[in-house]
């Protein structure tokens, strides 16, 4: 097996601010009380859902800058991404702030990708404060990848619900906060799943690959972490990952969980759970960070996965490749 690349950060950038904003359905989910802001409706005062998604990202950027007690001028670079074609939400949000911008795309793994890039920039001393922001919107993702909202179709039992929400954080060497100690950039892995409604199964091999790479490169095992958290494998995908890791002789115990699986309550009818770039971004920048602040977590391995397909590739019969990036956060 080809292993991913792990970078151990010498200076260990700190997460000095975090912010999360979600839609009303997400606000009623399992993490409702931890989010900084819950929107009253999906439109967020805009006349299209795309503009609402952009405004959500802008709100997340403003929010995190305020929480880190700085101004937007203190931000050296923003690393951001989303799910829309040509990542318009992030680019247009960056337009509003006049700060240098790096657009990244890793589908639902974008939060970890942006944080990994940002922590390397900060660790090398090239930038002082780097802002990371990622979001997704149910209604924009549905119409880009699937069907119109009002179409009377049924969702297959393996499908997941794209989270409406955005999360952001600021990495810096100065200030206080949990530290990013190492990052692993993952490979693109494709095990031939071609069901676009079964993202969990398509992405689980990528998570396996990055997880194995990370454990090998850092000489650690699942026992060394308080929490191992994947992004949006969902109920089915995380079960598959546990099986895949078992085959490799690595047993994921009670300290393993998945953001998508935990996101919604059972009665919210989301089948295999939450998904989307906003899924792990909002959980990480609310619940996980707050647990760190309380001192309940000491060391967390965060490895969101992304399915790197487009409607064109799947209509042309291509299978669904996945990618997974890992970061380790320590208190």
């Amino acid at each position, binding site marked *: 097996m080809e292993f991913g690349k792990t970078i151990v950060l010498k200076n260990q950038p700190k997460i000095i601010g975090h912010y999360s904003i979600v839609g009303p359905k997400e606000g009623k989910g399992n993490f409702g009380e931890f989010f900084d802001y819950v929107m009253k409706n999906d439109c967020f005062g805009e*006349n299209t859902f795309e503009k609402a998604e952009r405004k959500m990202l802008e709100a997340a950027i403003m929010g995190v800058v305020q929480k880190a007690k700085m101004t937007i001028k203190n931000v050296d670079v923003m690393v951001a991404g989303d799910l829309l074609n040509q990542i318009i939400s992030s680019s247009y949000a960056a337009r509003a702030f006049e700060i240098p911008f790096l657009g990244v795309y890793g589908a639902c793994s974008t939060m970890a990708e942006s944080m990994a890039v940002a922590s390397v920039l900060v660790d090398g001393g090239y930038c002082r404060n780097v802002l990371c922001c990622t979001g997704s919107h149910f209604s924009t993702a549905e119409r880009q990848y699937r069907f119109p909202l009002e179409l009377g179709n049924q969702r297959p039992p393996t499908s997941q619900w794209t989270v409406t929400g955005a999360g952001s954080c600021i990495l810096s060497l100065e200030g206080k906060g949990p530290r990013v100690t190492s990052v692993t950039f993952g490979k693109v892995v494709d095990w031939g799943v071609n069901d676009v409604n079964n993202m969990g199964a398509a992405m689980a*091999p990528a998570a396996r690959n990055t997880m194995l790479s990370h454990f090998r490169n850092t000489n650690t095992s699942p026992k060394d972490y308080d929490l191992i958290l994947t992004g949006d494998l969902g109920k089915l995908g995380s079960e598959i990952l546990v099986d895949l890791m078992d085959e490799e002789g690595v047993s994921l115990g009670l300290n393993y969980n998945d953001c998508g699986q935990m996101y919604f309550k059972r009665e919210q009818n989301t089948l295999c759970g939450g998904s989307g770039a906003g899924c792990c971004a909002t959980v990480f920048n609310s619940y996980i960070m707050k647990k760190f602040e309380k001192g309940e977590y000491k060391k967390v391995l965060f490895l969101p996965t992304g399915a790197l397909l487009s409607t064109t590739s799947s209509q042309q019969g291509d299978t669904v490749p996945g990618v997974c990036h890992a970061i380790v956060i320590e208190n």
Partner: protein
Amino acid sequence: MENKQRNLAYNNYVKEKIPKTKAWPSLFYSFLVGGAICLLGQGINDLLLLAMPNISQQSAWGYTLIILIFVASLLTGLGVYDQIGKVAGGGSIVPITGFSNSIASPSIEFKSEGIVYGICVKMFSIAGPVIVFGTVASAGVGLIYWIISLF
């Protein structure tokens, strides 16, 4: 070669792991809602014939279809039809009301891209194939009918 085998094994494993849709409840709700829509259509047809005794059966059928299509579009706009579809599945897709829903829903969805590039272009994005297949099939059947009638 090794990867091919691994992928095949993995896909088989995933297939077994997938939660199955419960067939009987789905069929029951499909039958219930689909049947109700048909019953509604028959009711409208009978009422039309009762109210206007001098129209032909042919035109009563036409009016019934128009009314069903209108009601389904209205329910789509009000955000009700997709709720029915969630429960009924095929029961609300197969009747003409489902066809109406499949045209109305993208029209609403893509209104934001303007009348020409939004509504007009995207209107048939779901119903389009049905129309194409319908037209081709009827032409094919017409051709066969013509050939048979030659003898």
